[in-house]
C-alpha cells in the first residue's frame, strides 16, 4: 500500500525544541521517515567576534554559548588559553574550579530533567527540578553575583575565594538535592507511562554512536565508557574518586538514567573537593596585559552536554587570531535522524529532549 509522505515542520517557535531549532520532518501518518534540522536562528557570530576582543574579554562571552551551564564554557575556554600560554594554576584554584564545574553540572542536569519530563507530559517534574536548581543558583549568586551567565572562572584561576560560610551553604544544598531527586525518581523511574515512552525508543548502537561522534551522556548510555574527567583528567579531576554511570541499550531511558546517576556522582565529587580544599592562592600571577606567543592549542573538557573543545590560535598579540569551538550539542544533533527513523512522531520530542541540546551552543 502506497504511503503518503507529509512534510511537517516543527518550526523555530515550538514548545519542545529547546531553543530556536527548526526541524523539517518527513512523516508517514505518524512514523518518522527523515529529519532535517535547520540551524542558525541563534547565530551571533561568536567566533568572529572573539577575534576582535582580548583573551580576557572573551571569557564573559563564552557564558552565552551553553547558557544553562555557563561555567563549563568558561572552563573549557580558559583551560585552552592556559595551555596555549603555559600558565600554571594553583591547586586551590583547581579545586574551586572543580566545585564550580560540578555544581554547574548539577544545575544543568536538573534543568534538563525538568524540560525533558515536561515535554513528555509530566509537568510537575519541571518545577521540582527548577526548585532544586534555584538553590544552586543562589550559591552562584552568593559566590560571584550572577545566576545564569556566571563568568566565575577566569584565566589563571577563579574570581573569588570560597570562605567557610559558603562551604557550609554548599554542603546544605548538597543534602537537599537528593531529596528532590528522590521525588523525581519516584514520579518517573518506575512509572509505566514513562517507561513506555522511553524504553526502546531512539536507540543507537555503540558503534554507530562513535561513528556519529556522539559524546557525553548519550554515548555513555550506549555502554561506551568515555568520560573526559576520567580518561584525560584536567583541572585535578584525577584526585577525586567517582564512578561513571553507563547504560546498556542506548535508548532514551538509559540516557535519562545515566544523567540522573551523574547527579549523584557530582554531589560526591563536590563533597570530596570541599573536604580536601588545599591552602594557597586562588589566582595565578597574571600579567596586566595577556599577550601570547604564536602557537595553537586544543583542549577538551567534559561539559554537562558532552565533550566541549576549544582550539585557539595566537599570533603574539593580546587578541586571539582564531578561536574554534567544538560544541557537543552540534555534534550530538547529527545523530537525531538516525535515532528518530522508524519511531513515531511523538517520540521525536522525547529523543530531542534526551539528547539535551542547547541552541546557544549549536549556533554560537
Amino acid at each position, binding site marked *: 500500500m502506497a504511503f503518503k509522505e507529509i512534510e511537517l515542520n516543527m518550526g523555530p517557535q515550538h514548545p519542545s525544541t529547546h531553543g530556536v531549532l527548526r526541524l523539517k520532518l518527513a512523516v508517514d501518518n505518524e512514523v518518522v521517515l527523515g529529519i532535517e534540522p535547520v540551524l542558525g536562528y541563534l547565530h551571533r557570530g561568536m567566533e568572529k567576534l572573539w577575534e576582535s576582543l582580548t583573551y580576557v574579554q572573551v571569557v564573559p562571552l563564552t557564558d552565552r554559548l551553553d547558557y544553562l551551564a555557563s561555567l563549563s564554557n568558561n572552563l573549557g575556554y580558559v583551560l585552552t588559553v592556559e595551555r596555549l600560554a603555559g600558565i600554571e594554576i594553583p591547586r586551590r584554584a583547581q579545586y574551586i574550579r572543580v566545585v564550580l564545574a560540578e555544581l554547574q553540572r548539577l544545575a544543568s542536569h536538573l534543568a534538563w530533567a525538568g524540560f525533558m519530563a515536561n*515535554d513528555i*507530559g509530566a509537568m*510537575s517534574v519541571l518545577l521540582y527540578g527548577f526548585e532544586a536548581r534555584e538553590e544552586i543558583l543562589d550559591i552562584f549568586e552568593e559566590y560571584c553575583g550572577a545566576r545564569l551567565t556566571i563568568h566565575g572562572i577566569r584565566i589563571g584561576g577563579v574570581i573569588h575565594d570560597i570562605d567557610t560560610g559558603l562551604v557550609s551553604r554548599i554542603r546544605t544544598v548538597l543534602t537537599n538535592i537528593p531529596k528532590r531527586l528522590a521525588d523525581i525518581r519516584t514520579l518517573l523511574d518506575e512509572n509505566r*507511562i514513562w517507561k513506555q515512552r522511553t524504553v526502546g525508543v531512539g536507540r543507537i548502537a555503540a558503534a554507530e554512536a562513535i561513528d556519529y561522534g556522539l559524546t557525553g551522556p548519550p554515548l555513555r548510555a550506549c555502554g561506551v565508557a568515555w568520560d573526559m574527567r576520567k580518561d584525560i583528567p584536567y583541572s585535578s579531576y584525577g584526585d577525586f574518586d567517582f564512578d561513571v554511570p553507563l547504560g546498556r541499550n542506548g535508548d532514551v531511558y538509559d540516557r535519562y538514567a545515566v544523567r540522573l546517576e551523574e547527579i549523584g556522582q557530582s554531589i560526591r565529587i563536590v563533597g570530596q573537593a570541599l573536604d580536601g580544599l588545599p591552602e594557597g592562592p586562588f589566582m595565578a600571577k597574571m600579567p596586566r596585559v595577556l599577550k601570547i606567543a604564536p602557537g595553537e592549542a586544543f583542549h577538551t573538557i567534559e561539559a554537562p552536554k558532552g565533550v566541549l573543545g576549544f582550539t585557539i590560535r595566537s599570533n603574539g598579540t593580546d587578541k586571539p587570531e582564531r578561536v574554534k569551538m567544538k560544541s557537543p550539542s552540534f555534534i550530538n544533533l547529527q545523530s537525531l535522524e538516525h535515532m528518530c527513523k522508524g519511531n513515531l512522531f*511523538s517520540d521525536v520530542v522525547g529523543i530531542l529532549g534526551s539528547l539535551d541540546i542547547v541552541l546557544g551552543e549549536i549556533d554560537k
Partner: protein
Amino acid sequence: MTPFVADLLIPVGKIIAVILYPMIMVMVMIWLERRVVALMQGRLGPNRVGFQGVLQPVADAAKLFFKEDIIPRQADKRLFNISPILVMFSSLLAFCFIPLGEPLRVGTYTLTLWIADSPVGLLIVLGLSAISVFGVIFGGWASNSKYPLMGALRSVVQVLSYEIPAGLTVLTVAFAARSMDLVEIVRRQESSGIWYGFLMPVSFVVFWISAVAETNRAPFDLPEAESELVAGYHTEYSGMKFAYFYMAEYAHMVLASSLVVLLFFGGWLPPFQGVKALAFLHAVPGFVWYLIKIMFFLYLYVWIRATFPRYRFDSLIRLVWKWLIPLALANFLAVALVRFLR
C-alpha cells in the same frame, strides 16, 4: 400551581439551570485546575484576581471574549464555525438526563431535579457525549492545517476505542441495578446498602480510566498535547471559539464525574447509610453530597494531570485493546455469572 407556572416557568427554569450548572462548574474547574496544579508543583498559582484567585476564570473569559476571531483563509468556514458548537452541544445536552437528587416536595407540587428521566438514561447519556467526536473531527479537518488534522485523527480513534470499555463496565452496573434508569440505579444502591464502586471495584477503575481518556485529559491528552502538537485540534481557533472548546472539555469532565458518582458512588446518598450512629449525615441535603463527590473526582482529574506523563498514541491504543477491553469483558462475564447464580 397554575398551568402557566407548572408547564412553562418551571421547565424554562430547569433549562436555564441545566445550562448554568455546568457553566458554573466549568468556572470552578478552571480555578481549581490552575490552583491545584500549581500547589502540587510547589508554586502558588493565580491568587491576585479576587480572593485566592477565584475571579481568575472571569478574567480568562473576558480575555478570550475580546480576542480577535481569526479564521484561516483556506479553512472550511461552515465546519470551522460549527465544530465548537457541536462539542459544547453534546455535553450540555447530556446534562438534561443527569438527575441531581430525589424529587422535592414544594407544597403540593413535586419538583423533579432533572429534565428528563428516561428508562434508558444511561445509554442516552453515553450516546450523547459521543457526539462530541464530530466536533473534534470537523475542527481538525476544517482548520486546513497538518497539526490540527493529526490531533483530530488521534482524538477520534482514542474516543471511539475507549467507548468500548466504558460501555462494558457501565453494563455491569446496569446488571447489578437491573435497570438503565439513572435514578433507579441510585435508588438501588440505597436499597442494597453497598455502593457499586465498592461492590465492583474493577468496573469502577476501568470506567474511570475510560472516562479520563474520553475527555481527552492527561495522561491521555495526546490530541491536545501542548508540547508536541502545539494545541492539537484547536490550534487554529482563537477567541470565543477556543473558549467554547475549552469550556466544553471541562463540561465533559463534569459530565463524566457526574456519571461516575451516580453509577458507582451512590449519587446523592450520604455515606455510611447503614450505620445508625452516623445518621446525622442524612441531615445534609443530597445535592450537597452529590457536589462533594463530584468535586472529589474533579480534584482527582487535576491530580492525575499534575502527576503523569502523556501516553504515546500507540501505547494508548494498545492499552485499551489489549488490556482494558479484555479486562472489562472478563469483569462483565464475572458479574453476569454472579447474577446468574444468585
